[in-house]
């Protein structure tokens, strides 16, 4: 993300001082004479600027703008091409009117942008409450590294297998249903490792893992660790567990 940037590039020339984008706009509006602009100097200055802190997006914009300026300057310096063979269909008066209308439209949008700025300023000063997502407490006694280490093991195992054929499409919904069934058959509890048989492909392992995470999120399944060096156990959750979790996000419930 590019929220934090170095100081923006500023053009310093005899006839203009300010950001590149503004320079382009003024040139297009005929307020700055492009034929007198030292574009090579501006480009060199930009290169120096970008060495201090290169921002890809800023550079993209700068290149676009510089290219547009070069084009405008070339056009201004070259002898004017002969006018198109057919005169424009519109009367000069119509052209003026169209131009006037366009300018009026742009002015209206500039004005309305001011109104929108006020709305934005207002909204940037209000704060929502942090949403009460179901969080944390689902992984009792299991640190993420434990879970990930177990995952790494099974993935490494999957990778050692010879070249995989494109597997049949496995959907997460199917895998979630299969996991629930597996757990029910295992009378509600089984070892994490048992979910990943040796013949599983990498895709299968990933989908199983994501299915497991989704079941944990939906509070259908819980994870716990048996003893300090024990195995990781997956178990079916009951409704009582779910209610306890909901209570945890409603601090007022226990107080009254």
């Amino acid at each position: 993300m590019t929220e934090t940037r170095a100081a923006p590039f500023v053009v310093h020339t005899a006839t203009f001082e300010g950001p590149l984008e503004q320079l382009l706009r003024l040139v297009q509006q005929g307020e700055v004479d492009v034929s007198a602009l030292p574009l090579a100097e501006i480009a060199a200055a930009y290169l120096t600027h970008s060495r201090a802190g290169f921002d890809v997006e800023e550079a993209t914009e700068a290149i676009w703008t510089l290219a547009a300026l070069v084009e405008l300057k070339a056009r201004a310096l070259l002898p004017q091409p002969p006018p198109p063979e057919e005169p424009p269909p519109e009367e000069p008066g119509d052209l003026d009117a169209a131009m006037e209308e366009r300018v009026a439209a742009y002015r209206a949008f500039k004005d309305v942008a001011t109104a929108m700025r006020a709305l934005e300023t207002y909204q940037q000063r209000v704060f929502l409450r942090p949403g009460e997502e179901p969080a944390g407490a689902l992984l009792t006694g299991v640190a993420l590294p434990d879970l990930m280490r177990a995952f790494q093991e099974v993935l490494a195992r999957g990778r050692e297998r010879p070249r995989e054929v494109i597997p049949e499409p496995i959907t997460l919904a199917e895998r979630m249903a299969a996991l629930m069934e597996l757990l029910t058959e295992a009378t509600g509890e089984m070892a994490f490792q048992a979910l990943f048989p040796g013949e599983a492909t990498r895709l299968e392992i990933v989908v199983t893992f994501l299915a497991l995470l989704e079941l944990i999120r939906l509070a259908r399944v819980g994870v716990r660790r048996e003893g300090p060096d024990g195995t990781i156990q997956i178990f079916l959750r009951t409704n009582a567990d779910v209610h306890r979790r909901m209570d945890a996000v409603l601090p007022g419930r226990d107080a009254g």
Partner: protein
Amino acid sequence: MSDRSGAIPILDEPAQPPDDARLYEAVRAIECILFASGEPVRPEQMAEAAQVPTEIVAAALAILRGEYAERGLEVQAVAGGYQLVTRPAYAEAVRRYLGAAAREPLSQAALETLAIIAYRQPITRPEVDAVRGVRSDYILERLEERRLIHVVGRKDTVGRPMLYATTEAFLRHFGLGGLADLPPLERFGQIVSPPEL
């Protein structure tokens, strides 16, 4: 800044249901729901959670907004739902507590481009360029990245250019209940019709 509550006509309905106790309970329940949710809540969601008809929800919301008129918090109609937020007057205190920096506003050029898209949507990039008089590629890209606009299709014309429209995040960014809440453009210039391109 004026209160923009008037934008939602449903709230203007008479707040006189048959059962006062039931309405009162609905007001309290909706207050709790808005508090617990970190995002706009649609009236149907409130009705379902509070187990009351939508007419009661509308009346309860009107009462709740009145109750919060004098408080530090306010009920906002945003993006088709309602949300409870802190008042702007206390932004500094909240920022000091949260240790949060002020959020970065949109650049002037981005805001103008967004205004054009908001009022003329769906609109193509060349059409935006024609209004602004400069190329808008970069700005459109940034706006799309911030999820304030998105591509909704292609125009059936030469080159089949992409058509842009504003998103729900746009409504949230400006605290608008819907596009109808945008200030009427006619007030801002003498535009009879959009120029033909």
